[in-house]
């Protein structure tokens, strides 16, 4: 069974959803038959490349209100992330354009390291306050999970995998994903958002049960 997940590395609900899916898989009796593939999605493709802004400041400008109000607004997601063992640090998170991070993830995918790289980049963005449009930072993070540093740098300094990222995003739109995380099981079932663990488990069982049923 194939589970595709559209996600962005700056998306706090995506990391929570990832953990909940992983917990569901731990309880799924056929987990060994499941292949999870992470697909690219940009929450804010209009974010200008090269522009870096503290997350709270960026949110305050975008949504209006003070940074104090924005902090209060993020309390709930921080609390729910903590329940999944994720200690988000929005104080030090930097808003960037994530397109290059996704291109890097596609290189990693070519090395069989897509999932590891997506996990590493999410942690770097949401917990560690790394700057995910910085080439040196991205090369270092990718190398930590086994992506050859020279290849990562070559990709990031060029435009390789641009079409792959664009195709992922186009496909998400085609499937009707208005937000992320967006989970698609065997191209038959969709799960939108960071649903509860029991919901993911139920979806996995439903998809598995109907796996051999051809779509009309």
């Amino acid at each position, binding site marked *: 069974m194939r589970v595709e997940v559209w996600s962005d590395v700056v998306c706090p609900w995506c990391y929570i959803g990832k953990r909940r899916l992983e917990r569901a898989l731990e309880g799924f009796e056929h987990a060994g038959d499941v292949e999870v593939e992470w697909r690219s999605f940009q929450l804010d493709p*209009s974010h200008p490349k090269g522009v870096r802004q503290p997350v709270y400041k960026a949110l305050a400008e975008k949504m209006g209100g003070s940074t104090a109000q924005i902090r209060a607004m993020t309390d709930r997601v921080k609390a729910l992330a903590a329940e999944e063992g994720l200690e988000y640090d929005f104080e030090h998170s930097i808003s960037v354009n994530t397109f290059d991070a996704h291109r890097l993830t596609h290189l990693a995918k070519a090395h069989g390291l897509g999932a590891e790289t997506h996990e590493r980049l999410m942690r770097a963005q949401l917990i560690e306050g790394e700057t995910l449009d910085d080439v040196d930072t991205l090369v270092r993070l990718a190398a930590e999970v086994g992506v050859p540093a020279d290849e990562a740098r070559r990709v990031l300094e060029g435009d390789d995998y641009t079409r792959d990222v664009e195709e992922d995003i186009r496909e998400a739109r085609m499937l009707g994903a208005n937000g992320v995380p967006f989970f698609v099981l065997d191209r038959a079932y969709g799960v939108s958002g960071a649903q509860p663990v029991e919901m993911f488990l139920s979806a996995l069982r439903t998809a598995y049960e109907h796996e051999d*049923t051809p779509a009309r």
Partner: protein
Amino acid sequence: MSAPASQEAPRPEVPAAETSPETSDGARPLTRPVSHAPGLVVLGAGDAEACSDGTCW
């Protein structure tokens, strides 16, 4: 496995969205009407947390 999503109706054995079986807590509907994912049966409550249009809060 990787065929494009069909624009047609979901698999016949799949319960209709309106049947809304519930999860173990008995509170959240397992399925909801397919409103934004052509070719997919969308499972889960519609109020789950997600980021959309660049906003997560």
